[in-house]
């Protein structure tokens, strides 16, 4: 279970998260919705350990481990995965090399045997077929020259290979056409199960038609201001965030 209590964080002296309380039980998918500037991306970065954020209070734990005390790579090895809103380009780093290095680093951290090049390729090709990704994406530099949709699919491919126990999807739907959106949603739905949870961060309800969440939370002004079932997403779509503000 991911458990966040009273989490406050600031960047450059400006408070962005003003006391987040949230629990995502194992096996559940929760959505966080909110307008721009509400702190959605900050929450995802703070949970995954990006530098530049000052944690001023509160706690966050995953399966009982204190997330905030761990390095980003330790969080990843513990099973946390962040699908980036803007996946980073790595010129000169081949995608296959990147994926295998990441997978083997995590296997090493868990005391599992590393995969050799052949074993890895077999696995990667299988996962790529499921995501309708052309095989030449393995040969290219990581995200270099990828279209917006290809970058997001590459994020989902990484998730499918690394098999996290909790995935944070930061506006994975932004910049996707409907076909790409379906592929990404299928990728996430394929991971669904009693050992997998996810925090789906999105501005729009659209993605939640394809990844149906167990719970929906509304983040505004650095706080969770409302929580409910999947119907809350539809309600927001119909009446906008203004209605929450009024409530």
């Amino acid at each position, binding site marked *: 279970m991911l458990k966040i209590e009273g989490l406050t964080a600031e960047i450059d002296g400006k408070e962005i998260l003003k006391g987040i309380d949230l629990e995502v039980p194992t096996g559940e998918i929760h959505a966080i919705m909110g307008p721009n500037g509400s702190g959605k991306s900050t929450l995802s970065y703070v949970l995954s350990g*990006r530098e530049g954020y000052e944690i001023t209070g509160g706690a966050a734990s995953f399966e009982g481990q204190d997330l905030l005390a761990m390095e980003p790579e330790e*969080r990843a090895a513990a099973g946390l995965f962040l699908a980036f809103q803007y996946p980073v380009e790595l010129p*000169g780093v081949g995608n296959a090399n990147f994926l295998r290095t990441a997978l083997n680093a995590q296997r090493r951290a868990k005391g599992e045997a590393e995969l050799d090049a052949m074993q890895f390729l077999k696995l990667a090709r299988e996962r790529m077929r499921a995501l309708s990704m052309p095989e030449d994406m393995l040969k290219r530099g990581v995200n270099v020259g990828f279209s917006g949709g290809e970058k997001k699919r590459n994020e989902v491919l990484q998730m499918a290979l690394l098999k996290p126990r909790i995935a944070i999807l930061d506006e994975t739907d932004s910049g996707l056409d409907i076909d790409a959106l379906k592929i990404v949603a299928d990728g996430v739905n394929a991971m669904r199960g009693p050992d997998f949870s996810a925090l789906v961060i999105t501005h729009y309800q659209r993605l939640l038609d394809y990844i149906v969440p167990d719970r929906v939370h509304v983040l505004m002004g650095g706080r969770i201001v409302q929580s409910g079932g999947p119907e809350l997403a539809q309600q927001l779509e119909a009446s906008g965030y203004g209605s929450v503000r009024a409530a």
Partner: protein
Amino acid sequence: MNAVSEPAVTEAGAAGFLHRFEGLRARLPGRGLPWLVERREAAAESFRAQGFPSRRVEAWKYTDLAPLTQAGFGEPLTPVESALPLPRPAAPRRVVLVDGRFSQDLSDPDAPVRSLARHLPELEGRLGALARVEDLPLVALNTALFEDGVLIDLAPGEDGGVIELLSVTRADRPVASHPRHLIRLGAGAKLVLIERSWGHGEGRYLHSPVFEVEVGEDAHVTHARMQQEGKGAIHLSTVFAEVAARGTYDSFLLHAGAKLSRSEAHVRLAGPRAAAHLNGAQLLGDGQHGDCTTFLDHAAPDCPSRQTVKTVLAGRSRGVFQGKIHVHQVAQRTDGYQMNQALLLSDQAEIDSKPQLEIYADDVKCSHGATVGELDEEQVFYLRSRGIPAAQARSMLIEAFLQEAVEGVTEEAARAALAEAVAGWWERMAA
């Protein structure tokens, strides 16, 4: 035969080298050839007048030759030893110079490469045709003191294949060697030359080769240069290349070893649609100084030139890039590109970058740029968020920066040798 008395190390500075010339002049190869004797004397005189360049000279503003001018050097011992440990060959055919002298024993007899010293009588009018000494004291010194080098002559249409030229210096004593290499490709000929400077031991020595490369019409030479000298070495090399119509001089320079290294390239695109690639990478660790200086002369129309030089600097190191492009009035439709990128891994490292364009033609496309930066923390975080430990993430990104530099080398054997050298350097640095 081995009981040769060990020549003394000379006094420091230009005087020491001139003194050595006085002592050697009666024994240097080609002493029976009046034209060569005259050339050597004139070169020694030119060097006497110029001395070693100081930092007051514009072209030497960023590179201080104090480690050279404040130390004494001696001539290599004779005879040449054959029992040297050598690096693994980088090409199927290899020729070896030891302390500046061609080693018949260590060289592949099938390679189309000969000892320069043995063919001097044929070289009147050719030796020194490209290498000028007036304003280049190191070239003057080389002309006065060279003992040997290689001679490569490819007939029109001949394919010289892939050849490794390995220059080994034994650093158990401070020798100074000044080999002279002459390379000529007839029309349509082709050559891949993997030139490697390799040093044994940690001691001080000077390796200062000069190349004269004539590329005929439609000929193509790949010149992969790998400076992997010993830790205490001073490497000062100068390449002169002249490229005829539609010919290509495609070079890649790697600076990975030596305490102080400077490689100068003077390339003249002499015929229409001649092309030059002067790419390179400098890998500099603590205490190293690397200087890549190029002069590109666009002297004919429709010539493209490409130049990308990347420098990685760790510890207390200093890198220099100077690139001058001169476009003559006749050189219409010149297409020149120059890019210099540096990655600073330490705040004690320094890079100096000086691009210089002089354009006298009016229909010209010339661009240049320079970037200096640290590792992108956004990229580091992306890798770490996937479970890759911080040190390994940084290592991957630095290697990517470096490998990107060699990716442009189209000749497979040359690219593989360069990629291996780059990976090896980074493994040692990261260890």
